[in-house]
């Protein structure tokens, strides 16, 4: 099944990096946990490259965990795994969460060392500074430290 990559994220959807002594913190926000997960994955890619990543190929992943925070780490580690074994970078993400399971679609392209000038290589998502929560404004955030 081919799913068109989402063109633009919904309002309130954004991401950031936050400081950690040795590694890097990533955080995504969205109107749903799934959207926050998608934004956090964009932050993950932005830890590697600041260049545009073209949605030339799509990859499907699925994972499960007993709670939403552990599921977030599983999601990021699924993306990291696909980045590593396919030598790809992903710029667009679509996530669906049902109970304790997640299915995701990643759109991206093969790493082009000259164009992407990749900085760090994500090794794994950690449980440190791990938080998935809904703020008073109703916006969800998902964050953790990624070992690079």
């Amino acid at each position, binding site marked *: 099944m081919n799913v068109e990559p989402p063109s633009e994220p919904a309002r309130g959807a954004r991401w950031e990096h936050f*400081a950690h*002594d040795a590694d890097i913190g990533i955080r995504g926000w969205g109107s749903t946990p799934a959207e926050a997960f998608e934004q956090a994955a964009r932050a993950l890619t932005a830890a590697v490259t600041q260049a545009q990543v073209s949605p030339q190929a799509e990859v499907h992943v699925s994972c499960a965990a007993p709670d939403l925070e552990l599921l977030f780490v599983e999601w990021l580690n699924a993306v990291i795994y696909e980045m*590593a074994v396919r030598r790809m970078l992903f710029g667009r993400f679509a996530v669906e969460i049902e109970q304790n399971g997640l299915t995701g679609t990643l759109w991206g392209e093969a790493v082009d060392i000259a164009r992407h000038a990749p900085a760090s290589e994500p090794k794994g998502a950690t449980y440190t500074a*791990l938080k998935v929560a809904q703020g008073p404004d109703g916006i969800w955030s998902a964050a953790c430290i990624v070992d690079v």
Partner: protein
Amino acid sequence: MEASRFVRVDPTTWSLEPTGAMRVPVVIYADVHLLEDMDDKVIEQAKNVASLPGIVRGSYVMPDGHWGYGFPIGGVAAFDPDLGGVVSAGGVGFDISCGVRTMLTGLSTSDIVRVQRQLADSLFRQIPAGVGSRGAITLDAGEMDEMLTGGAEWAVEHGWGEQGDLDRIEERGRMTGARPDWVSDRAKERQREEMGTLGSGNHYLEVQAVAEIFDPTVAGVFGIAVDDVVVTIHCGSRGLGHQIGTEFLKEMVVTAGESGIVLPDRELACAPINSEVGQRYLGAMRAATNCALANREILGHYARRVFTHFFPNAELPILFDVSHNTCKVETHLVEGKRRELFVHRKGATRAFGPGHQSLPDALRPVGQPVLIGGSMGTGSYILVGDVKSEAQAFSSACHGAGRALSRHAALRQWSGRRIVDELAARGILIRSPSSRGVAEEAPGAYKDVSAVVAVAERAGLARRVARLRPLICIKG
């Protein structure tokens, strides 16, 4: 953190007595400046480690300690299996058996300067570095299992290295107790094309000049003198180790509760050593250790090949190869009794003193070389294990300078291009596929490595032998 929170045992030892769930004290080796520069989260993480079951004597932090995940970076903790002790996937980290090797070249600085640019370019072409780089080796399933069992010994058998190298590698180049059958297919898949790759982040291959000798006698035994040139490689078990760490962290978070272990931080995920999960992790972790040993051996072989092109008589024997993200079974003297302990070192280097039986004959009289990576601009150190180190922190020392600024802050402060130009003007050639990666690893983002090793020496962890200054740095 405020020094007033601690009991000052001596000018380089700071102690925090157990409170709450802590079973042992936290002991930090630092001078007051390094201590006050450490993030408060270091002490929180060290206190969490102090609360784990079966921990023996103390939760230690080396002078380069900084905020990690689970354990602090620079954390050392030993566990007794007979007292319910645990093995922690978080305590070893994702980059299992990440470490450093230093090779002697028999060349002097002037030899390198004559061909410095060509040598840097050639090393950069020959050493796969950074995200998206490909190794020249692809392993099938049988070869993967042989590598995971054989380590550097396997690499030598396949022509990537010399038999004589094995004597100068921890565990003689091959970690026993490895269980490739306990390594997942996903971890193996992640490693299939990764052998002989450097990785990225703070991993590097450097050509370095010996700038200063502190202990001429030990330096003589190590075979180094002022103006000599050495090659140092810093990397680990690549994707295989990362995946094993990822998978066992997840599993141990769940099983820790079933074993009645209260985790103060989920990243400290652990299992009793004498449990099925604990044994399975140890078997997989030891396989990853062999992967790291094989990987550094192959990279060393590549470096030799490049050097031989420029200097046909260069042999590049290994001074030593030592890991700093490990859990090792070691015998230590605790309150007058020798006990077999599982020593976790997370960003800390094993530092056996003179006479240790694991050392090769040539090194045993003086102690183990302790290899400390600094930053691109400031240099690195070679230390030697001290007899006092066993009593201090189970024969452990620091592993690097430790970051002073996050990658995030470094990026705001420096441009990679400018750092490369400034270092080139000082005779240090940087080669990296990523200008941003260079900025993240800017010399100013690290603490003063000289201050860190000086404290390590004063604290009795390891003694300085030589200071190295970089000439060429290949960064992923």
